[in-house]
């Protein structure tokens, strides 16, 4: 979006100085700093096209809504609670951070901090323990965004005396009554979140934005791996890059594949092997080049090329 300067059709000053009669969306867009957040999102997050599109739409909606409120057309705070569904390692937490920043810049949350919790932080261990614990977390998140990771663990239908239900009731109450104070983002795997919403219809109706995170493609994961390495001042050599592509293709079909998180773990192990190799092979002073290059050998040694973890391989063989 580009700046569209107002020319000779400058609006006459409104009767109420605090209630403008026209609104310049482009200027509001520039002024709120939303552009920086969206640009940062584009620059730092690879892929995720549908997620970015949804965030763009949400930002536009909120900007228009803010303008409407300034003009006295809307009075209600829009429901901002969201659910992020997607496989592990698809960037849900990172996007939640950006979302908190975005909402802060648009003035929908006052502080813009992100409080990340899981079931353990909300649900107590004995009777009477849950309510204070949940309220404590909610208070901490006020003025910001509460991110509940793997939210479906809150609801355990198999145990009817589970305290999760109590946490859910308090959450729902605060989500409804303190809509100005905090935004709740529920995150988790798509299938299990759907079941969670089915059994807790209160949640589904209170959440306006459902955003799905797709898996990364092989190309995107390769790009991500290069960015991750670059951030730590490492780089692949030519052979290593091709090996990494093979690695991603092989890893995807093995159990416990967690998209970008698997890549990060693989790179951590490659750095370990690189350090070990340098230690064993180096016969003189090493330059920065040697210290910061991951070679094919560092990646080839991975168990992924030998069919995964020993335990998983045995299980598969037993199944066959």
């Amino acid at each position: 979006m580009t700046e569209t300067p107002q020319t000779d059709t400058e609006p006459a000053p409104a009767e109420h100085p605090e209630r403008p009669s026209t609104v310049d969306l482009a200027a509001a867009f520039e002024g709120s700093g939303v552009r920086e957040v969206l640009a940062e999102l584009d620059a730092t997050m690879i892929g995720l096209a549908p997620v970015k599109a949804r965030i763009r739409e949400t930002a536009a909606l909120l900007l228009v809504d803010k303008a409407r409120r300034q003009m006295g057309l809307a009075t209600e705070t829009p429901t901002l609670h969201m659910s992020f569904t997607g496989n592990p390692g698809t960037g849900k937490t990172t996007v939640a951070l950006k979302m908190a920043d975005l909402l802060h810049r648009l003035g929908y949350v006052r502080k813009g901090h992100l409080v990340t919790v899981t079931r353990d932080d909300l649900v107590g261990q004995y009777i009477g323990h849950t309510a204070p614990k949940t309220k404590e977390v909610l208070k901490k998140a006020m003025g910001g965004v509460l991110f509940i990771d793997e939210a479906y663990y809150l609801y355990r239908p198999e145990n009817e005396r589970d305290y999760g239900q109590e946490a859910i009731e308090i959450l729902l109450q605060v989500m409804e009554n303190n809509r100005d104070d905090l935004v709740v983002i529920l995150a988790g795997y798509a299938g299990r979140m759907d079941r969670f919403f089915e059994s807790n219809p209160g949640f589904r109706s209170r959440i306006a934005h459902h955003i799905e995170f797709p898996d990364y493609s092989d190309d995107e994961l390769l790009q991500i791996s290069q960015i991750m390495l670059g951030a730590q001042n490492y780089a692949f050599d030519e052979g290593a890059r091709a090996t990494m592509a093979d690695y991603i293709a092989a890893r995807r079909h093995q159990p416990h594949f967690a998209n970008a998180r698997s890549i990060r773990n693989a790179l951590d192990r490659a750095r370990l092997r690189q350090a070990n190799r340098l230690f064993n092979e180096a016969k003189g002073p090493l330059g920065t080049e040697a210290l910061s290059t991951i070679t094919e050998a560092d990646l080839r040694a991975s168990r992924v090329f030998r069919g995964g973890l020993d335990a998983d391989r045995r299980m598969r063989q037993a199944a066959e």
Partner: protein
Amino acid sequence: MRLRQGQFSFLPDLTDDDIHAQAQYAIDKGWAVSVEYTDDPHPRNTYWEMWGHPMFDNRDAAAVVFEVNECRKEHGGKYIRVIAFDSSAGWESIRMSFIAGRPAEEPGFRVVRQEGEGRSIRYTIESYAVRAPEGRRYA
């Protein structure tokens, strides 16, 4: 008789928005805000009952207003105050304190005279409210 203790006590009762603004000021200064209540309004009654823990890691005053309202539900007929504790070296003390809730009717204080040796008289004050046992005042 309207109790005048702490900040803003000569102003009309603070609204929730006022409480929010004051608490946010304290939070932005890095002070831990907490809510307390009592049914003994004597000015030298320093330690009121704590309503929950001091909120050390809350960044937004909405939590304070929330707790004040929770406290009002439970102890609506008593005095409720919001205090801000500054833990930085050299202070380690309360920096702000203001009343956020009070009973509908405040009977005030009476002067108590105690006759001492000779013709000396010692004076003190006592709230009419504390003549009833604790928990049954301001009913």
